[in-house]
């Protein structure tokens, strides 16, 4: 039983990354009906920006008398990196998606894919081939609760991700911008005619998604502090699976599916076979889709989208 709880806690942490990345996919998909294949690499860029900010802040704290505690540096890093990465997201939208809004949807997906490759290669060209160690800002403390091992990092990661997801949900539910986004998801042909600026909303969508990806990137770097330019590829595609599995443009669905994917991967690896993990995990996903072809919260045959 304690083993089960151990796996459960591991899965919670692992799932929260998928969920956070999947949200970005899900919003773009819900509102603009496009696949943003650059998203995995925005996650990577976010982690790298976080690395830059954290290093700079730590150096600043060391140099001046300014006694920044490490947890504050981490919080500042997350916030600043989210802010900066949102511009990367907007840039991606401006270059790769806005000119292609009328084009076949897959074409925009390809530009996204290509921007992703440019981001990877650009990173390799600028920073060189070495992998980067993310500075360990908070000291790991291990708590042993009845045989189940929990670290403060794990708790922090899960809590921060949940807070961000709730914040996004509130933003979309309660603010005017959120309402505009929901409206746009409902119908992006008519709503702009009613005076809602499509371009702004598209930028906002990408900015929000990228900010979440940056947060995911930094949390990821805190948990797994080794960064390389290609970390975004696999997680990006897997989170893409989660986003669509959650249902078209559903925030709730994307979160749920992200956690579910994390749980499936961890539990299959733990109880069935770690070498057959991908095989079994994605067969389960296939089966889910056979029975719920529209994901968890998607509606069949509809242009009506929910956000």
């Amino acid at each position, binding site marked *: 039983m304690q*083993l089960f709880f*151990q*796996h459960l806690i*591991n*899965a919670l*942490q*692992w799932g929260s990354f998928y969920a956070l990345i999947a949200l970005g996919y899900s919003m773009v998909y819900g509102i603009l009906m496009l696949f943003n294949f650059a998203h995995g690499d925005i996650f990577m860029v976010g982690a790298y920006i976080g690395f830059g900010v954290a290093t700079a802040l730590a150096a600043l704290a060391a140099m001046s008398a300014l006694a920044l505690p490490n947890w504050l540096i981490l919080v500042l890093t997350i916030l600043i990196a989210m802010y900066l990465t949102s511009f990367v997201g907007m840039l991606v939208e401006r270059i790769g998606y806005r000119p292609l809004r009328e084009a076949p949807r897959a074409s925009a997906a390809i530009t996204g894919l290509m921007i992703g490759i440019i981001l990877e*290669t650009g990173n*390799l060209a600028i920073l*060189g*081939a*070495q*992998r980067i*160690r993310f500075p*360990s800002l908070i000291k*790991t403390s*291990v708590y*042993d609760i009845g045989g189940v*091992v929990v*670290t403060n990092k794990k708790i922090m990661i899960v809590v921060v991700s949940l807070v961000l997801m709730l914040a996004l949900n509130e933003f979309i539910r309660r603010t005017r911008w959120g309402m505009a986004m929901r409206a746009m998801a409902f119908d992006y042909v008519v709503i702009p005619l009613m005076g809602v600026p499509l371009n702004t909303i598209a930028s906002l969508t990408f900015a929000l998604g990228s900010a979440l990806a940056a947060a995911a990137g930094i949390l*990821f770097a805190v*948990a*797994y*502090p*080794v960064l*390389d*330019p*290609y*970390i975004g*590829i*696999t997680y990006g595609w897997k989170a893409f699976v989660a986003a669509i599995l959650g249902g078209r443009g559903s925030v709730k669905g994307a979160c749920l599916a992200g956690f579910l994917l994390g749980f499936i991967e*961890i*539990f299959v*690896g*733990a109880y069935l076979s*770690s*070498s057959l*993990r*991908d095989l079994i995990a994605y067969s389960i996903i296939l089966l889910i889709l056979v029975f719920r072809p529209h994901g968890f919260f998607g509606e069949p045959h509809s242009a009506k989208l929910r956000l």
Partner: protein
Amino acid sequence: MRKGLLLVVLILVVGLALSPCAWAKAKTIKVGINAPITGDIPKVGEGSKYAAEMWLEDIKAAGGLEVGGEKYMVEVIVEDNESKPESAAKAATKLITEDEVLAIVGPQASSQAIPAGEMANNYGTPMISPWSTNPDTTKDRPFVFRGCFLDPFQGPVVANFIKDEFGFQKAAVLYDIASDYPKGLAEVFKEAWEKLNGAGSVVAFESFTTKDADFSSQLTNIINSGAQFLFTPQYYNEVALIVQQAQELGFKGPIVGSDSWGSAETVKLCGEACYGLFFSTHYAAAGATGATKEFIERYEKKYGYTPDDVGALTWDALRIVQTAIESTGKLTGDLEKDRMAVKDALANIKEFDGITGKMTFTPDGDPIKCAVIVRISEKGEFEFYKSACP
């Protein structure tokens, strides 16, 4: 339109007149490097490239390569194989037919070295893969050699070391099932360990897939299995994650690795978590003497970090090629004959004194060389601990 055309023609003519024509072909020896500059393992490509640059510098300083009393200029051509098999085959073919190299060093990883070796062998060009451990790379290919020892040697070395040093009974192995090298070594190690301690003494044999970052489910199972130590023949980036997560989850035993740990990055990425751990490798950087020390210091000075095992192995491979070319006695200028001569010279090399140890090639083209067990010291340096020879 017409004016433009005229201008183009004019520019072409002028440019042609100014071009540094290779009217008289200088005597050069070309050596190809087939390395993964882009793709999954760019650091490996970088290490190979840097080692080649340093080697070229040496040759230039000596005024060229002397073969049979004649000095030849040397040109190194680095070709990117994008860490893809078909691209490695293309790069090898390009080096052989277009650049007309005398010998090729690389590719490093087996999944590229096997197809590239096929081309090199078919087209009669000697090739040394410094880093590939898959037996298929050199098997039945007289033109293909390698610069490192094989899994069947390294696995038992590690197993014996642990048995002698700690006297453990129960082992756990964690490896990447999608990657050639870790998988091969993990299997060999399992076999060796079970030979020492009886069947079932490997209590956990867990795997993951390349690019995974979370090993918590596997590690939880390993801890639960009661293993006394963990053997993980992984690359340094994964080592950092595995060691850290294992310790966080409460694994108390030692974690032991293989030559893929042999990179300055292991300590850089892993930090203090890795201090005091052991691994088997080709050479120990700290406390090295003679040529090895000189190489490490030069590399550090030039590129700012301690060379990886790949850099050292590439360096050795290039030096072997150099020795082989020099010992041919005479280059005819007929590429086919020269390549054949270099191949024969390579196969006849005895007790080559490289920075990663002395080596002699078996008829299959695999070297016979010693392994060392290295301990990561409290200063984060790789200390020599023990050596094991075949």
